[in-house]
């Protein structure tokens, strides 16, 4: 058993290899009850493998993972009874009604006959689907289906819920109401795991782990991560003409990276003060002008790109012809 009962998930030195490929490479972390933990990383980074291990569906090669107090390697069945899972392609039956889907998943998760009616009614109310119990699921709007899918995933009142890109592609209004629901569940003590490659979805989590190539490259709250650009600072430069300014800025020694954002350029620099002092003159000497230059707070994407150490390829920095 895990020692601290406030810890919902405790992972130590987790490794998973498939043949010669290391999908998960010595990952350690812990999650408290009622926390919303996000795994952020590109497709193929190892997020799904980690989640499958934590769900007791895959055995780790080495290391340990305790979920809801049980060792996933020794007691996967006990783990599976205490978790809920919702994927981006929620597996609802489109030709069943809302109520029929809930009953079906309740049966699947072994919710007893005496409890099922009460749980289904609760799920319908929580998901904001009252009055729509008898609607055919296929006719529901995307945001509604998603809340129903969440309702189905938590009918057996799991201690931990895993959500795989839960709000990709849904409209922002539905997305916010979905996250309201998640925060409400977390407030009631349910631990939430979110895995996503959408930076803006990650912002909703309390705690984030950035995952790349099977490793955890950083973790912290979204704001902690954004306040620590390890390699420097981010500046916004409004320039005219944009092309000439960009071509010049890419070669300034202060500039680590330059990328166009709409009508401005975002510059990753080593030192904000010295860049602000020197760049306007430098750009002028290359026949362009900076009309505005200020430090801005980085986005999670900036942090991610910075931390993973993967610079934009050299070819992008070749001399302008």
């Amino acid at each position, binding site marked *: 058993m895990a020692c601290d009962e406030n810890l919902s998930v405790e992972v130590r030195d987790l490794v998973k290899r498939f043949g010669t490929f290391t999908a998960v490479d010595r990952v350690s972390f812990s999650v408290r009850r009622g926390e919303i933990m996000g795994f952020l990383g*590109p*497709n*193929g*980074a190892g997020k799904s493998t980690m989640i499958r291990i934590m769900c007791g569906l895959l055995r780790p090669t080495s290391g340990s993972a305790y979920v809801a107090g049980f060792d996933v390697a020794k007691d996967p069945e006990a783990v599976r009874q205490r978790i809920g899972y919702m994927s981006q392609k929620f597996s609802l039956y489109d030709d069943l009604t809302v109520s029929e889907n809930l009953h079906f998943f309740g049966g699947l998760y072994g919710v007893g006959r005496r409890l099922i009616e009460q749980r289904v009614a609760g799920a319908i109310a929580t998901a904001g689907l009252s009055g729509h119990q008898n609607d055919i699921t296929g006719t*529901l*709007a*995307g*945001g*509604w289906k998603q809340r129903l899918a969440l309702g189905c995933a938590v009918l057996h009142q799991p201690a931990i819920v895993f959500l795989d890109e839960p709000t*990709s*592609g*849904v*409209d*922002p*209004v*539905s997305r*916010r109401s979905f*996250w*309201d629901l998640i*925060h409400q569940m977390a*407030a009631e003590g349910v631990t939430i795991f979110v895995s996503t*490659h*959408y*930076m*803006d979805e990650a*912002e*909703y*989590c*309390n705690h984030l782990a950035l995952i790349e190539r099977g490793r955890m490259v950083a973790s912290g*709250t*979204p*704001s902690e991560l954004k306040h620590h650009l390890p390699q420097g600072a981010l500046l916004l430069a409004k320039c005219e003409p944009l*092309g000439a300014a*960009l071509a010049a800025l890419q070669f300034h020694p202060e500039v680590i990276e330059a*990328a*166009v*954002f*709409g*009508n401005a350029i975002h510059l990753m620099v080593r030192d904000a003060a010295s860049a602000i002092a020197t760049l306007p003159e430098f750009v002028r000497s290359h026949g362009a002008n900076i009309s505005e230059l200020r430090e801005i707070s980085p*986005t999670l*994407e900036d942090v*991610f*790109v910075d931390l*993973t150490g*993967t610079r*934009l*390829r050299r*070819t*992008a920095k*070749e001399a302008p012809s």
Partner: protein
Amino acid sequence: MASARNPAVIAASLVKRFDKVTAVDRLSFEVYPGEIFGLVGPDGAGKTTTMRMLAGVMSPDAGSARVAGFDIVQNSEAVKNHISYMPQRFGLYEDLTVDENIRFYADLFGLAKAEREAHAARLLAAAGMSDFRARLAGKLSGGMKQKLGLTCALIHHPRVLLLDEPTTGVDPVSRREFWQILYSLLSEGVTILISTAYLDEAERCTRLAMLLDGRVLMCDSPSALKTRMPGTVVVVASPRAREIRLALTHAEGVRSAVLIGNAVHLVVDDAVRRISELTRALEARAIPFESMTMAEATIEDLFIAQVQGQPPPAGLQ
């Protein structure tokens, strides 16, 4: 420059219906040479249908459109010769190499051999793929596949590029490289229309149309759009954000309150006045917070404010 004044893409009251669903509902916008114009909206907003009509592969039920100077209905073949359309699933041959895929598309568009070699080399270099020419397309990462798709789409020097959600599921570094290539195309006079469901990506467009239910909610540059935000965003950071949200949701002048991570994002009518009032309200309830500051509205904030200001669309109320 005469060309700078003539739009490269004109959509005029385009309509497309599928059975009872109106996927595109009197959609109008114009895209000028040198722009990266974004069609931005959630799944089902009509982005793909619009792209297909502009590419000349689907006819509108009503309205008209001109792309690169040609009418998409009367002259759909001419449209196809002057544009490039990259659908969400671009037709790469997974069992052919990078080079063979490019050659295939060059043949399709009847490009002369002498011309294609230098052009292909330049495009591959810009995509950071020069070292991968002999690799099978099926063995490329998601980001690389998208860049190869773009390379194939550019091989015949199109004047207008239609890209349907090219960066969905692509890792952040490849996404940046992809955008870098797009910006470099602008200087060559290519006009780009791109659709995306990533609202943060909208910030990279020179101008954009926000779509919902087949209609344009707003159309302008990202910075001009933000000036239309009704109210100001105030962010309250606190480990007890949930309590703060409960305490402030119904406070005077607060239009909305959303929990995002360990912070509450409020939209208030008058930031200067409300910040001092809300600070007092939290102090009175002894709820600690780290900071309460004004923040720049994001495209998402704007989208939500816009949608909530309207009668809810069918199926969402």
